[in-house]
């Protein structure tokens, strides 16, 4: 079936660097995308979302970019901090997905060293 995937399973950065986490999706019917952060022993925590009628959205230290032409989603974290270390998942909701359930990718583990 169609699913959301991530390009890299792990990403290691230095504190203060900018991080970019990528995600490719295959369902062209998806119209809503979310980035979640999951720390060890915790549930996924909402970071930022974007609708398909937008190509960029900014939050506090985070930016999500959406390229529908190539079905690509990215999360940019500015001035990465040790507290940003976690697993990051992108998720999508296809327009006709029953119950608006999310389809998750496998995740990227971000490690931040100080």
């Amino acid at each position, binding site marked *: 079936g169609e699913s*959301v995937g991530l390009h890299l399973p792990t990403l290691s950065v230095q504190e203060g660097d900018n991080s970019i986490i990528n995600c490719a999706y295959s369902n062209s019917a998806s*119209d*809503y995308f*979310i980035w*979640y952060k999951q720390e060890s*022993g*915790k*549930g*996924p*925590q*909402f970071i930022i*979302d974007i*609708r398909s009628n937008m190509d960029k959205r900014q939050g506090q230290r985070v930016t999500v970019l959406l390229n529908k032409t190539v079905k690509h989603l990215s999360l940019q974290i500015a001035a990465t901090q040790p507290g940003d270390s976690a697993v990051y*998942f992108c*998720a999508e*909701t296809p*327009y006709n997905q*029953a*119950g*608006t*359930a*999310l389809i*998750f*990718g*496998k*995740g990227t583990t971000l490690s931040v060293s100080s």
Partner: protein
Amino acid sequence: NAGVTQTPKFRILKIGQSMTLQCTQDMNHNYMYWYRQDPGMGLKLIYYSVGAGITDKGEVPNGYNVSRSTTEDFPLRLELAAPSQTSVYFCASRPGTGGERPQHFGDGTRLSIL
């Protein structure tokens, strides 16, 4: 504001035993979901509910049952536990109006079947 609360946090079952994973939310959300997360993987949808008295199957419903008698509670039932059901289970909820709303997750129940 407690958000989504799941109990128990950990449980070990023997093959063939049954149990109920509890989930309650205090945000008056109409939509609730159960996901399972296997090691190194994203979340997969088990069951969902769009309101009290209404439930429907997700991607991996076999071996599970749910009920939704109130807006707040959405318990997940395992009738005959099998080793393949060893996983981390997450409950989530979101407002029912509009398709573009992020889901809020509990911290999970870690279940081992031995």
